[in-house]
């Protein structure tokens, strides 16, 4: 059969260009944190059921390295694609608000929805994020304990 495939790479390239030129929040862009305030009151008031789980921070750290570090940075310090999670806005947010944001993403700004991770895993991520030192008072990353 005759296959005219030349438009495919062209269209793919257009897709890649579109992705690269889409609006990407930077660490200094404080408006990215405004999404946290959009969490409904009921969602923001939810407590982390794994708050006292001794493994939650370590498991959350593992999940963070697997799914989040690519954009938010290995130490959650932020990068060109996604903001710092050590920022005061994040550290002051309630666990419920962080869980809500993880679940719903910020699709128009490039953060995918993470509801494909089961709820307990999202709460483990929240535990890890809340364990991070705020940017203003750096302290060792909890994940560093596991590293030689």
């Amino acid at each position, binding site marked *: *059969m*005759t*296959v*005219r*495939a030349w438009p*495919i790479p062209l*269209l*793919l390239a257009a*897709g*890649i260009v*579109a*992705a*690269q030129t*889409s609006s*990407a929040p930077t660490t200094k862009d404080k408006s990215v944190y405004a999404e946290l305030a959009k969490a409904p009151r009921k969602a923001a008031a939810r407590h982390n059921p*794994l708050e006292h789980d001794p*493994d939650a921070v*370590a*498991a*959350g750290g*593992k*999940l963070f390295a*697997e*799914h989040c570090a*690519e954009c938010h940075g290995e130490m959650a310090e932020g990068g*060109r*694609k996604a903001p710092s999670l050590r920022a005061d806005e994040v550290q002051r947010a309630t666990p419920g608000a962080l869980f809500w944001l993880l*679940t*719903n*993403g*910020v*699709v*128009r*700004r*490039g*953060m*995918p*929805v993470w*509801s*494909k*991770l*089961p*709820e*307990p*895993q999202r709460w*483990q991520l929240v535990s890890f994020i809340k364990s991070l030192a705020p940017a203003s008072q750096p302290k060792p990353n909890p994940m560093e304990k596991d590293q030689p």
Partner: protein
Amino acid sequence: MAPRLPVPQVLCFGITVVVLLFALPAQSQESPYIVTYDHYLEEPGSLEVEYFSTFGTPRTGNDFHAFWAELEYGATAWWTTEVYLDGQTTFDDSTLFTGFRWENRFRLLQREHFINPVLYIEYEQISGADKILKEVEGHDVEADYAVPNAVARKEHDHELETKLLLSKTFNGWNIAENTIATKNVTGPNPWEFGYAIGVSRPLALKASAQRCNFCPENFIAGIEMYGGLGDRHSFGLNNTSHYLAPVIAWNLPSDWTLRLSPGFGLNDNSHRFLLRWGVSREFSGFGAAVARLFGGRR
């Protein structure tokens, strides 16, 4: 005569794949479905390279092995684009390339809702010998696949395929339903319809604290069912084929995913048995790497 496999090469390839599986860093969380789509798109800037096989045993006609490669790219958080290359081997017949597909999925709503819709639009340029059964629609029946390759390959189809993907994840369970409408734009063909539904769940909902290959949360099991619903002139189940297929995915910490699905034909119009398997790897940050290569800022 059935094609003979070059055993040493296959062995070397298998060993290489296994070594790579355990050597590379990062992880993906892929669904186990092979036919059904949930509402999750590829992460922005990530490229997933996938290979799938379908081994089919028809009630009549020769067994076949259909295969396809996919390149799936997360263009944005709301748009995933994908290219497929299809081929097949029919035993006691021949092996041939059967065409390509270009698929796009668009997330329609910004946030998670009770049901999450995604619009799927695909252009296919395939021959009549295509057997990958990536979807079943219209009056696709087993007898269509019994035509010799030399004859079937002469049929050239240009198809526009649309799907409405509806999906919801609740308490770890994902439930997905796809409604399919396809139009073969080569000639005056009617719209054809089909469906796919799937349910799946990880074997464990909490992640373990250690990185591990065999942790239960790395396995997602489920079941999917798919089939045709006739066409615009004769909508319904008459003269259609349907399949029921358990599915399982193993998401390795090295960013590889393995999928396996034995499928069973539910009526005499369906193939008796389909064994599907697939292997995929996600490359996070592919878009940024390409941009850097061309002097981009990310």
